[in-house]
């Protein structure tokens, strides 16, 4: 290092200037970092702005009452009808099928991994689940249409080539990893002393898991189910590929139907002019989708707050 003569050291005013400069730079950097963090808020504002502003144009042409009560969805025909229930029915039926697969399967895997499996099984199982969760949804869509549908048709020859059922089943498999890993985290957070208490009373592992661990972790389980519902409602490609894109007001999973998301894809694939009513419908549909997911999220937060247990 350089000599430590007093004359080599910078003067007081130089050091003050240096400090001022440094403080200024620190402030600047902090400001830049805050801006980056604020981008996420801007994203939300952008989403709300785009959906609401285009939907306002839409609702100037279509009354809200028709939108909610009409039983046909034919926005691109001459005889245009805008009954969103048609798309909502497809969304709900496919989501329900998915959840009927994903919730039992995901919860069973979570209980097994957290309460029964030893660490070696867990080391293998977790990456498998992660890989399953990482498969692109378009590949799942391919799988639903070209593998699962033919299998279903083999057992039920009357099944059509597109159906909510095969899309929903595959969607369920897709969601399993989310439920399994979040529920497992919640159950592992339950303190060991509670399990030991149950064992000391003579409980079996299964009894402890179901009557002690699951109730204690119920808020985490609920949160994972809610996330699964959001995923299912917002899932697009599996439905666009395997469920057909015909609007169809039905509660029967064996039929083809359009969902909110697959309708948006269908319109985007065509070439609709910016500003036309057809263009506006996808924003109204998107707003409906966002409100549905928002509703479930609020429900989830409420459930979590209500059943939260602290140890």
């Amino acid at each position: 290092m350089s000599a430590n003569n007093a004359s080599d050291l910078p003067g007081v005013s130089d050091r003050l200037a240096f400090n001022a400069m440094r403080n200024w730079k620190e402030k600047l950097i902090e400001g830049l970092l805050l801006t980056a963090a604020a981008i996420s808020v801007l994203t939300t504002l952008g989403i709300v702005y785009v959906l609401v502003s285009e939907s306002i144009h839409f609702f100037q042409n279509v009354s809200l009452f028709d939108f909610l009560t009409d039983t046909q969805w034919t926005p691109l025909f001459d005889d245009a009808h805008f009954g969103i229930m048609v798309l909502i029915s497809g969304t709900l039926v496919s989501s329900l099928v998915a959840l009927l697969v994903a919730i039992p399967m995901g919860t069973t895997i979570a209980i097994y991994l957290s309460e029964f499996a030893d660490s070696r099984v867990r080391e293998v199982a977790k990456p498998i689940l992660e890989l399953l969760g990482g498969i692109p949804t378009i590949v799942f869509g391919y799988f639903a249409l070209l593998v699962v549908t033919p299998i279903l048709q083999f057992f039920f020859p009357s099944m059509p080539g597109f159906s909510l059922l095969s899309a929903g089943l595959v969607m369920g498999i897709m969601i399993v990893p989310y439920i399994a890993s979040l529920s497992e985290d919640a159950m592992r957070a339950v303190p060991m002393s509670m399990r030991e208490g149950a064992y000391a009373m003579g409980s079996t592992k299964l009894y402890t898991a179901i009557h002690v661990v699951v109730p204690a972790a119920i808020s985490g389980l609920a949160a994972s189910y809610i996330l699964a519902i959001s995923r299912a409602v917002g899932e697009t490609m599996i439905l666009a590929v395997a469920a057909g894109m015909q609007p169809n007001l039905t509660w029967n999973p064996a039929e083809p139907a359009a969902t909110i998301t697959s309708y948006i894809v269908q319109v985007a694939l065509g070439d609709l002019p910016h500003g036309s009513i057809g263009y506006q419908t996808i924003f109204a549909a998107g707003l409906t989708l966002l409100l549905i997911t928002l509703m479930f999220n609020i429900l989830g937060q409420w459930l979590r707050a209500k059943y939260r247990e602290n140890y």
Partner: protein
Amino acid sequence: MKPLTTEQIRAVIAKGKFRDNLFKAMGVFCLALALLVIVALIADMVIKGADRFTLDFFLNFASRRATQAGILSAWVGSLLVMLVTALAAVPLGVAAGLYLEEYAKRNWITNLIEINISNLAAVPSIVYGLLSLGIFVYQFGLGQSILSAGLTLALLILPIIIVSTREAIRSIPAMIREGSMAVGATRWQTCRYHIIPYAMPGILTGVIIGLARAIGETAPIITIGALTFIAFLPPVPYTEISEGVNAGLFDWVMSPFTVMPIQIFNWTSRPDPAFEVNAAAAGFVLMAMVLSMNAIAIYLRYKMRKNIKW
């Protein structure tokens, strides 16, 4: 109540054990089912697409004739979109994560940002497509370009990168910061020379997982109206695109494009079964990309857990 006899107690225990084992079997069965789906998926695509794994498949453009169609424009498009996504999302995500962990005071702004990030993670991806269609494509006039798609996916994976950055930073003990500041480093110097380097493996894991998610995303890119039939590549910088005109360094970002998932969607939704084969082969290529990225991330995390001991 009469006390149970030894036999009855044994029976109760045996029943409990039987139920335990039954449940264990169910757990293993469910896991096996998950594994079976992965294996069936991959096997199906490999068997169906086997004929198409030739060099030509990677070097041909999409075509009306199934046997001559390839994925050149799709994989080039995917790589370029990922490049834009990474360039936009990584600096923003890391900066946001750094701010929230190291700088943010506990006030309403911080709370707002945190709640917002966790809610954004639950927004369906197609809604990001609508956002981008309204803002990037029409408001900013970026058109149906690589830039629009890259920015859309960047916004989509931002929460993933922010969350993993924060987790990585949070695992660095306070003594590192105290040591750095004790020798006179400013907050930024502490971040620049200590926090970011030590958090790097964790950040990298998050970035890879985010990009693996982005490369498989189809819905938002279809929503912005990306074409499905593209038989050309974006202009290479400084090469001639038309008589006497050279492409600029960044001309490619404004080019129309297609990506792997859209190409697969296009082939899957055609009634002609000959295209199924192409969809299978392209699906396998996409899966291989995504799974290898995920495998790298899983490996990195595993490595990290083994090596770092503070």
